[in-house]
């Protein structure tokens, strides 16, 4: 509001209970290996897209688990599905399928245009 010369800064807190985790449960039903992620960041390090941008699969996994879907919806499209992350994942998480299912989940949810 110009009247005050400043505006209310939006809270950055992740309100776990207010978030909707339908996307991550859609993924976990079909790809339970996502549970094994210990967020070591090896996938983000190997990432082809990560080479060009700040795209980080580790961060996406956590944001999905916390229900911060809006942040992920646009970012996830940057993945090239090249599969390098699967080869380096120390926990054997099928990271490529997680991205594939996430994209699917986002298109299936009405209201989420993709």
């Amino acid at each position, binding site marked *: 509001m110009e009247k005050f010369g400043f505006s209310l800064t939006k809270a*950055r*807190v*992740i*309100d*776990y*209970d207010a978030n909707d985790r339908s996307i991550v449960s859609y993924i*976990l039903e079909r790809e*339970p*290996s996502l*549970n*094994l*992620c*210990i*967020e070591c960041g090896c996938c983000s390090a190997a990432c082809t897209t990560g080479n060009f941008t700040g795209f980080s699969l*580790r*961060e996406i996994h*956590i*944001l999905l*688990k*916390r229900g*911060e879907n809006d942040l992920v919806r646009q970012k996830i499209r940057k993945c090239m599905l090249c599969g390098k992350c699967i080869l380096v994942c120390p*926990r054997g998480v099928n990271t490529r399928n997680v991205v594939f299912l996430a994209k699917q989940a986002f298109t299936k949810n009405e209201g989420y245009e993709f």
Partner: protein
Amino acid sequence: MNPHVIVIGGGTAGMEAAGRLARAGMSVTLIEKGKDLGGHLRDWYHLFPDRRSSDEVLEYLKGQISHQNIRLLTGQQVTGFIHKGNEFTVSTGNGDTINGDALLLATGFDLFKSERKEEYGYGIYENVITSADLEAMFRKKEVKLVSGKKPERIGFLHCVGSRDEKVGNIYCSKLCCVTAVKQAIEVKKIFPASKVFCFYMDMRMGGALYEELYKEAQEKYSVGFIRGKVSEVAVNINNRLVAKVEDTLVGRPLKMELDMLVLMAGMEMSEDAVRLAKETNLQMGENRFFKPADHHFGTNMGNVNGVFYAGACTAPLNITETISHARSAVTEIVNYLNTGRK
């Protein structure tokens, strides 16, 4: 007449050492301040890493101390000891004294008093319990909220009272991480519909089969792990706990409601041992555990010749390490007694 060893502390280390000493031909007096033996082992339900029942280990230890060379003195608090020449005279609470040729301190540990971390509201908010309380609930087969309802979301808070400058314990208590994961699995087994979270700074799962347990918790029980130390706990209007933490891997604060919060209290040197150490100038390390004569080949001895240590009074140890530490103490004592006590 075979040499006489006085063992102070009837926990895992004390019982194992007493049993081995007796079998090595020593006469042993085992002094335990509690009314029965077993120490903390009696409070645990299942033990990591294979989740066997703690009673089995207790039976084994009981078997160890049923030996004619062992005299049990339970319910006796040791007040001090005098060391003249090669003799030790230990005085107990009700005044009588015992003489011995060597002294083995197996005084074990105390769990950190979680109420000292006020911000977690232990003792102030309902359903904030410690890992020991949870083990007791497991033993009683009755894990429930104060309201009697089933918990839907359970949080485990690592590093309570350890790696924490504010409470004077900067050391890592090593076993709380694996205990948290083990308890997370057990809670999830009791409440399959619940969601369990562990709030950790670092997952220190260094022992044998610990990492496998960690993976099993993720894979079979979908336990969630959030990297961040909870700063404070409050209660919201529908009487649910609200934990505030920063999800450091996302770099943003996170607020989560919990039905039950389990504080993984770390191990500290037992208070009685500290008092005893001060009176008898047994050197203690900066972490208040007995200072070993040497970190590699002298962890059973301290600064006083003839006084030996065994178990968690020297450092946080799990049951396996405690038993092996007790056995090495016995070899040290036998060696000490046989080679002219130097």
